């Protein structure tokens, strides 16, 4: 048994566009929260502000990689004849 309350896929979380956070119900009645920024930084633990419980978020890091940080791949440059 892991020390997490559960492992949840990002698709099962609700996205709050205004606050840029993903949330999932916590058994205490509050919500597990992880921000878009935390996901972009590779964090995968959503925390509940009212509880000791933790939620592990399963997601594809590539989907959240911050675009600004992506190196420009020269090989994709189009060669103009």
């Amino acid at each position: 048994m892991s020390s997490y309350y559960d492992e949840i896929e990002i698709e099962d979380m609700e996205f709050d566009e205004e606050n840029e956070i993903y949330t999932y119900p916590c058994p205490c009645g509050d919500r597990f929260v992880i921000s878009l920024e935390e996901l972009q930084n590779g964090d995968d633990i959503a925390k509940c502000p009212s509880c000791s419980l933790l939620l592990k978020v399963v997601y594809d890091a590539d989907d959240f990689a911050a675009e600004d940080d992506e190196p420009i791949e020269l090989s994709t440059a189009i060669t103009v004849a």
Partner: protein
Amino acid sequence: MIPGSYVQQVACGWNHTLLLNDLGQVYAAGSGTFGQLGIAGVPADGSIALGGWTQVPAPVGSVFVRIACGIRHSLALDQDGLVYGWGANRCGQLGIPPDKRSPNIPTMALVSQGLPPIAMIACGRSHSILVAQDRRTVFVAGQDKYAQCGPATSHMVAGTWRTFQLPRDAIKACSGWDFGAILLGEPTDGDEERGIGNVVVWGRGDHGQVAQRVENGCLRDLGYIAVAGVCDMVCGSSHVVALTQDGSVYMWGWNEHGNAGNPNLENIFTPLCVHDGHGNPDNRAVSIGCGYGNSYVVS
């Protein structure tokens, strides 16, 4: 205004609520992000949460007698013993095989096809529990990661429903988020010797939900709890509250917030008497209730 003269039952999901009036009609309010309101036309992204009560469209002639809500799905039992469901079905919690591309069922669907007439319904976080009118046959569907779908000996019957038998008649079916609990009739001859108490539990037990310490955090078998004279029982997300005929209250399970009645905040793995009605005949508990992480006793 809701027609009829009174509301006979209220059921709450995570952010939706259902009402059942005395005419057997179901009304819904709240968020419909996962189709849990059963009302077509609510945007799938939940951008417009319904502001007032709206009747959930039902098959012509249906008269409902019970309602239940998981965090994101809903069930309604009609007077003929048929069960209708709507909302999230990603785990097959509505008894219907999930469609990966559109996992939500946005309007009432008959979900008890292939099952005998049903008497009781209950919903967990991502599973559903039904008890047939014989009061012995249980059907469970949905997530089974924590053995929510019952003992390892249960078998598939129809849709995503699995089934198993109870040793005595069920009085009431309840569900926590990741476990099931059914109140049985009083023990008959020999039951006590065989350890068959009056509450049967299965599923997740890492926080004491099944009133015993379990390996790997879940009980993939039926567990029995013997608290004499239990006449009512309710489940929070991860704890249980039981009322006895003499007005006592017992609790067990998750207690991080003191929600299972123990001020030391330790989880409770053996039913704890939090109110002694026998010793306080003038202050008996008469009713119990709970939210996800809290409990109520009316004395």
